[in-house]
């Protein structure tokens, strides 16, 4: 049991992530649940993280993510943009750019040497370039979202999907399938579409190496590869890209204790 414990809880639109660290920033408990804000997801993620850490309370808590404002038990609410930057910088000190693609939004963050945000850009209401886009694509292609990457690996380039609008893209996919394109090729085209959207967004703040990708979409190998191809930058992916916001929040929680 750690002497002092700090928790970061990242309550996203489609998942909840809890990370508990000790005074040395070592992770003592961590849990991710695919239930987001407004569900029992946050409470379950916290319970599991507590269980893993072998504790029943923490000294400080910082909430982040879409549902951060509603999580009243936190000592402080900090945006996921700041938290992803902080978490990444702790693990990859050379990181200058963070690409965070979550369930319903995408951000490109330029990071200062001290882990604070230098500049950032995020998508607007549009779902293109986010996890939601992948959900729509997987539904249209009739496969699970976790199968999309494997499917795209077998695809051949050449199918272009609109990078502007998820609704239009859905129509385009149906049209491509109707005209005989394979679902593998279409899946690859959809991943390329996300990458083009993200790299376009990144143009507003610039991409500098090292580039680290976080968020749930970073679990998709094909999207990461597509972002590398389109941007021309090597992408570093962490072991747990989804938990990076919660980890950064836990680091901020530790700061509150100092």
């Amino acid at each position, binding site marked *: 049991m750690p002497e002092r414990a700090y928790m970061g809880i990242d309550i996203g639109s489609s998942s909840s992530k809890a990370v508990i660290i000790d005074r040395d920033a070592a992770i003592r408990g961590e849990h991710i649940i695919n239930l987001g804000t407004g569900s029992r997801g946050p409470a379950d993620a916290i319970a599991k993280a507590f269980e893993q850490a072998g504790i029943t309370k923490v000294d400080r808590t910082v909430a982040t993510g*879409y549902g951060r404002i509603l999580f009243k038990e936190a000592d402080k609410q*900090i945006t996921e943009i700041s938290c992803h930057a902080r978490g990444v910088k702790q693990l990859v000190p050379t990181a200058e750019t963070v690409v965070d693609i979550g369930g319903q939004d995408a951000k490109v963050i330029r990071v200062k040497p001290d882990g604070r945000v230098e500049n950032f850009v995020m998508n607007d209401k549009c779902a293109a370039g986010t996890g939601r886009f992948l959900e729509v694509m997987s539904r249209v292609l009739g496969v699970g979202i976790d199968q999309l990457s494997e499917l795209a690996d077998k695809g051949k380039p050449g199918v272009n999907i609109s990078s502007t609008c998820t609704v239009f893209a859905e129509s385009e996919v149906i049209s491509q399938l109707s005209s005989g394109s394979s679902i593998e090729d279409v899946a690859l085209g959809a991943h390329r579409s996300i990458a083009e959207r993200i790299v376009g967004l990144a143009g507003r703040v610039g991409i500098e190496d090292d580039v680290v990708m976080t968020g749930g979409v970073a679990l998709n190998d094909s999207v990461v590869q597509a972002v590398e191809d389109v941007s021309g930058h090597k992408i570093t992916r962490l072991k747990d890209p989804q938990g990076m916001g919660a980890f950064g929040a836990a680091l901020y929680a530790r700061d509150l204790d100092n």
Partner: protein
Amino acid sequence: MNGINDKINELKAISQNPGQSVAQAIKDTGKKAVGCFPIYTPDEVVYALGLLPVGMWGGPSKGNKSSKYLQTFCCSIMKANTEQALGGDYDMLSAVIVTSFCDTLKCIIEDWKIAVPHLNIVPIVYPQNRKSNSGKTYFKAELKRVADELAEITDTSYTDESLAAAVDLYDEYRRTLQDFVKSVAEKPGLITPLERHHVVKAGYFIDKKDYVPKVKALTEDIRAAEVPSDRQGLNPIVISGIIGEPDGLLEVFDECGFTVVGDDLAQESRQFRTIAPNVGDGFDRMVERIAMQDGCAFLYDEEKRRGRMIVDLAKETGAVGVIFNQLKFCDPEEFDWPLVKKEFNAAELPYLYIETEQQMDSLEQVRTSIQTFGELL
């Protein structure tokens, strides 16, 4: 603070209920009302005719009747105005002056002539070269045409004296608001960004003669008050763009620890930051005022001063950053943004660019951006 709150609440009630406020103003003054589209309509001419100029800056109205005339990418103020016109909200107006600063406004002039002909549309075309003698000659003739057209529609008339008096009153109104926003900057945090906005906006819906004393009294109270301890230490910022709406947007500013100490909004300071010089007759003064008005996306400025003006405003008011609120999909503002951004970068002035619509159900993504801006400051 009670006196301040009472005065703000009175102005806020006027601002938040434009229809009722205008109906009341018509009743109180006995004047006919004339709608004035954004931005720089010749309100002084309307006033000189013994009419009541009323601002038409959209609103929360939603619907789909306007899509018969305007595409989805048209700006939300124009869509809301059209929606309200089609719904009969503007039937109390005797005429409507529509400017032609952007493509959407140009379409509105023709659309409304067909869609709501009873509203008596009076278009006005501003000169591209507003500083040249030929531009000024043209503009004076255009102002006279608008005055004559309005006089005929409303069966009213003006004199040189009534126009001069109207220009004097509007200059007084502009000086009063200049002083008000200065007082707010002197006491950062005392009133919220939303309250500041509603005080300014209320002026669009009542007679300026009645509005000016209210704002003067409020300004005096602000100067005499102390900022409560729990309102101190907020991040002072300048906001730029067309409008500071919806209300929720400015509430997010406050929740994220920002206080507005200056603005470059088309609906707010751009309306009153330039005073008419005392040259010639009333028309000449109006012409010269527009010639002097710089730093606006809708008025051609070959020296592209807007960015520098915002940087200077930030320095004068002690602002730590600027929030540029891009109203979707206002292309004159979008054309300005790269030039403005360049000036911010050169001055190392922190800034945040957000895109909003006047009617937004969810502000969560904007909230995240604004909160992050506070965190990085």
